[in-house]
């Protein structure tokens, strides 16, 4: 038991500080991906409900691809594919140059693409739940279409999309574990290193699982607070 405490302590003997650094990486990756995924997902949702056939098709291709590919494969495609593509592009201008893709950015792009394609479905469902009278009311009082979207539709949309989006956030936290494979020192990667060095695999992977659980619980608390706040602002339906 004492050995366990030594192993988990912060300091030269223990792995606590390494794993805490991993938690920071995991959380910052998820937090950095969230706005990208939300913005992109919203745009894709707008594309999907456009009256124009071509725009709808383009948006649907996007979701079909990123919802159909395994997240791990998306990550590899972005990580290696972007590297090769950019390398070729740069060789075109300067044959001697070489480029390294930042693993963190690759993880952000891949997770953002997956998140946004699921988020677009959530936004789409929320759009469908808003009656067309809301738009007509906006136009009737003289708001432009962008003003209607910003002042009338978006606040209701966010409230309707919140449950779906919070689900996606919990999935996003779990998906960040995949970036340990491309060498980002997140929680899982750090536990893997610790497990290999100390031969206490069950302890460290169990700890990693508990950390993810704790993150999920913290998120649930935060989400509940946001939902209460959103409900207070909303009209009673």
């Amino acid at each position: 038991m004492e050995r366990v405490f030594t192993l988990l302590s912060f300091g030269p003997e223990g792995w606590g500080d390494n794993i805490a650094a991993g938690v920071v990486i995991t959380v910052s990756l998820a937090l950095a991906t969230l706005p990208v995924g939300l913005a992109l997902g919203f745009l894709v949702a707008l594309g999907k409900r456009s009256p124009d056939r071509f725009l709808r098709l383009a948006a649907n291709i996007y979701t079909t691809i990123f919802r159909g590919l395994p997240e791990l494969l998306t990550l590899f495609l972005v990580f290696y594919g972007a590297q090769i593509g950019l390398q070729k592009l740069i060789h075109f201008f300067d044959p001697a140059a070489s480029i390294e893709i930042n693993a963190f950015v690759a993880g952000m792009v891949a997770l953002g693409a997956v998140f946004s394609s699921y988020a677009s479905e959530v936004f789409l469902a929320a759009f469908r739940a808003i009656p067309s009278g809301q738009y007509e009311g906006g136009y009737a009082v003289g708001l432009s279409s962008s003003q209607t979207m910003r002042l009338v539709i978006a606040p209701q949309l966010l409230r309707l999309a919140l449950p779906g989006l919070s689900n996606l956030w919990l999935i996003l936290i779990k998906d960040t574990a995949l970036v340990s494979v491309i060498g980002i020192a997140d929680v899982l990667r750090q536990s893997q290193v610790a497990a290999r060095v100390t031969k206490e695999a069950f302890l460290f992977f169990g700890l990693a699982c508990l950390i993810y659980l704790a993150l999920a619980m913290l998120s649930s608390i935060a989400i509940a607070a946001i939902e209460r706040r959103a409900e207070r602002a909303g009209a009673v339906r």
Partner: protein
Amino acid sequence: MTAAPGSLTPAERPPVQKAPWTHQRTLGVVLLCIWAALALAVAAFMVESWNPTLFERYAPRYMSGLWITIQLVVLSVIFGALLSIPIAYGRMSENRFLSALAYAYVYFFRGTPLLAQTFLIYYGLGSFRPELQAIGLWSFFRDAWNCALFAFTLNTAAYQAEILRGAIGSVGRGQWEAASALGIPKLLAIRKIIIPQAMIVALRPYGNEVILMIKGSAIVAIITVFDLMGETRRAYSQTFDFQTYIWAALIYLALVELLRNLIDLIEKRITRHLKR
């Protein structure tokens, strides 16, 4: 009323108005052009790097990898379905202890990444090697494939238990009461009355779960199981040819799309009595 019948000649049909060219259409065309350019670039890349010896060497391996993926998903979904029944029963049980236990199980497996669970089982159980050897389970947990199957079964059982619970809960109480009023035994009522109605609700989530398992199964490549993803990684590390990943992407996409369409078909079939 007073008008002569002759004045009722049908008016000229108004000319069909051409849809105006909007900004959205411009954007749509541009985006579609980008997709087409990307598809062309991928196709050109595949043609350019086409290598018959490479294809001959790796195509059978990809097929065996695909077979492993399918086996893993099918087996874990079936075992998971069996395991989900007692868990869903526990979740719906009146017994506090039982329902708390089932809730903790579901919360743990839905709240942690599948990759971490797989590591916990594959590497973590190695910490208990003497104990496992004593009860003769070590030979099972030594194998990466068995560990992956075990982890996936536990994981999908948690998700399926929630689906099952939701679906059974969606069938009205009156259905149970009517069945017992007619003297139908409980098991028969479940089989003939509750399950057919619950399946309509559960089909889509079940289908999504299978798709998620197909996509999630790619992570077994990390614990050295040579499924489709594992074969891809091996092929890439031997050839450094990026087309290996594109082949895998195409196969996974085809698999998922096939399944999605299949689910749509089944849904049409089991809801045909609701169509008007």
